[in-house]
């Protein structure tokens, strides 16, 4: 037998269990993943509140005469309470679905509305970036399997550039080139010009591209996809399809779904981290930029609200990926 060794667990013979035990194991597996989801979300929210509270300075310190206003504002904003009490209050508010109001970034505005507005804009970057990353990774995996190494090296070289540098260099480069053409009269001034000042499709496309490719993201996704594709091509069921004279790609694609879901879930967490940098650099009014502002201005409710939603997205994506794998792969159901 040639090719890489099968991944442990996945290519082992299926253990046949009685139906009742299989059901219990499945329930247990789902319960564990749901518990992990809840723990991740709560942990993230509490961690952010603890870190922001322990960070030097608070929202009142940002005001010119904060010392004089401290007593009144601390009571109004709940900053006069000890940390454990604030954590309990935060969890209580979250349980009631109340994310509070912004203190300093958008004073008085509903955090739920701010998170919904900025989150929706960020989703327009995140979802396409994730899909683009997966599509590029699969395409590159297929390409490299056929021996296309030059393109692979080029992609790796481009992908390794950090997101902040990629965004900055692209903005400066596109602006300089476009301005040169405008000055020469070769083109009329585009409505998106100059980046990144004006909201436009070009700016959005740039953000999606940087998120999908930069900071080694595409290289990592490609490596993961490539490993999965190689494993699947060497799998006995693909050999069997090949021996029958049937096309192998439907079998490979079907079996690629669970690992792809896993890869995409891991990638989603990374993308959320990059989102802060990319939105900040491209002046994009999304949740990443809002989180940066909220932390800078010590706007605890906004920072916690965005963290809550981000944690739900990350942990939720992981949960969905796990559930998809449980649904698609009978061996995982048996193993729990």
């Amino acid at each position: 037998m040639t090719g890489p060794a099968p991944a442990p667990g996945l290519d082992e013979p299926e253990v046949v269990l009685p139906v009742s035990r299989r059901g219990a194991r499945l329930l247990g597996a789902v319960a564990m993943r749901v518990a992990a989801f809840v723990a991740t979300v709560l942990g993230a929210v509490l961690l952010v509140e603890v870190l922001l509270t322990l960070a030097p300075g608070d929202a009142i310190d940002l005001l010119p005469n904060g010392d004089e206003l401290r007593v009144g504002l601390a009571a109004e904003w709940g900053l006069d309470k000890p940390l454990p009490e604030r954590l309990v209050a935060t969890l209580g508010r979250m349980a009631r679905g109340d994310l509070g109001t912004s203190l300093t970034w958008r004073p008085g505005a509903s955090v739920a509305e701010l998170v919904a507005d900025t989150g929706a804009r960020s989703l327009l970057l995140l979802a396409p970036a994730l899909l683009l990353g997966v599509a590029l990774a699969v395409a590159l995996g297929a390409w490299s399997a056929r021996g296309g190494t030059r393109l692979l090296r080029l992609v790796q070289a481009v992908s390794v550039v950090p997101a902040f540098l990629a965004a900055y260099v692209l903005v400066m480069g596109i602006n300089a080139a476009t301005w040169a053409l405008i000055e020469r009269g070769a083109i009329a001034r585009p409505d998106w010009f100059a980046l990144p000042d004006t909201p436009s499709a070009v700016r959005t496309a740039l953000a999606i591209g940087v998120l999908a490719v930069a900071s080694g993201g595409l290289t990592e996704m490609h490596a993961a996809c490539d490993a999965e594709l190689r494993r699947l091509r060497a799998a006995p069921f693909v050999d069997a399809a090949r021996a029958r004279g049937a096309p192998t790609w439907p079998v490979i694609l079907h079996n690629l779904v669970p690992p792809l879901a896993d890869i995409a879930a891991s990638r989603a967490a990374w993308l959320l981290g990059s989102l802060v940098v990319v939105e900040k650099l491209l002046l994009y009014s999304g949740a990443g930029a809002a989180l940066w502002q909220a932390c800078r201005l010590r706007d605890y409710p906004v920072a916690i609200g965005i963290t809550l939603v981000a944690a739900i997205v990350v942990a939720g994506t992981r949960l969905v990926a796990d559930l998809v794998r449980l649904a698609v792969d009978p061996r995982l159901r048996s193993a729990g």
Partner: protein
Amino acid sequence: MTRSWMLLTLALFALPATAANLRYAEDQAPAIVNPLFGSTMAEARVNELLFDGLYTDNQDLATTPALAASGELSPDKTEMTITLRDDVTWQDGKPFVANDVVFTIQAMQDKTTLSTEAGRAAFIKTATALDEHTVKLKFARPESRPEDKLLFKILPAHAFAGTSVKRTDGFRNKPVGTGPWELVKYNEDNSVSFTTNGSYRTPVGLSEMTMREVSDKNYQAKLLLYESLEALVRVLPRDLAMLQNNRKVELYPYQTNSWWYVGFNATHAPYDDVNVRKAMSALVDVPSLLAPVGTGDLLSGPFVKSSPYYNHDVNPVANDENAAETLFAAAGYTKVGGAWSKGGKPLTVRIAAHQSLESAQEVAINLQSQLQSAGLTVNVEFLDDAAWKGRVWREHDFDLILSQWTFDRNEDVREQFHSQGARNFTGYKNPEVDALLDKARDAADPFVRKTALREVHKRVHDDAPMVFLWTLDSYAAMSVKVKNVVIHPFYFFTFATGWQMK
């Protein structure tokens, strides 16, 4: 082929540009447009567009009536009767009346309002409306030129339920003023649109303005060059060369009441020893620190050189390593192996620098280098706004700080150097300086105030609570399309009604 492809791609997005209004950049959009709660310069500038005070500055920076028509000070200087203009209306159409002035002062003074501007009205004991267009102010102590303190913005009483105003009140993003522009809306991209107040009492040259939030300062000058902006409030020193060589941009120098300093924490050893402070001051080569970040005036005390309070008989501290060695020796330090120490303990310095201070990084690193080469161990940290206020202002947790003070026209340094001053976080104490600052505050005669503050300059210089560094030359940059530009050094837009665009 490549060029054709590029042209085609760009042409797909090409549409004619429209730029009928003046667009200016701010690092951060104003969070609250209510003069009771201003905390950033971006907010101060927007307030200048939307609101008026009883008095304002003219182009010679002398006080001149705005909403006031005239004012009469009582002989004992404890009361002032102000007659208001009767041709002013609020942007919602309601008439401007004396009750608006009374309301604004009472709202500023209302303890439950928690106004950041409360201090500006503290000198007023009572405010009473005598009739629709007359207000009587009684002062806590005699005031020789109260109009110089009546520059704060006036709010419409009818827009609030009472004098206890909240920061979160809806007024914050739907403000109503009497100023030359009205706020149209906050846009999705965090920009803010303004249009001319049609009922403003004088002609306004610019029909529209837009404040664009460009949080990354690296882009701002480029956006001006690419004609995506028409105005930059302040040009970074490193962008000056690029802009001054561009024929589509005009630079406007203006004098700000700002000065940079390195402050010592006099609340703990060894910086409570004036010899140590003076020795370290003598180790700082100020011109070398200034050179990489721009040009400006070197200072010897806590006023800008153009100030009437600047004492020109006092010279800036010279960089003199021999003098430093003598002073360190007087403080009990010895130099062993090239490093200063006392009782076997090396002199280690923590410098905290304000992260948002432009060019602070270069200055702090160069300062670190200068002090280290003179035999000190130096660590530098950069703090954001909240950390700065927490660590430096509240907890006094620093050895040296690198920062800047900016003042309005009154240049009141009492808070910084009086032992009871709210912003005296360096812990500087000198009873004689306290007395001089009290005398300056209470002086009815401007000459007495000037003399007292010049003496403050000298005493503070001698005590060396800070290394006074410089006032940077400031430049605004405008598209050449903008004409008749006159800039106010603090509020920027005070004279913007006269600006015009081709």
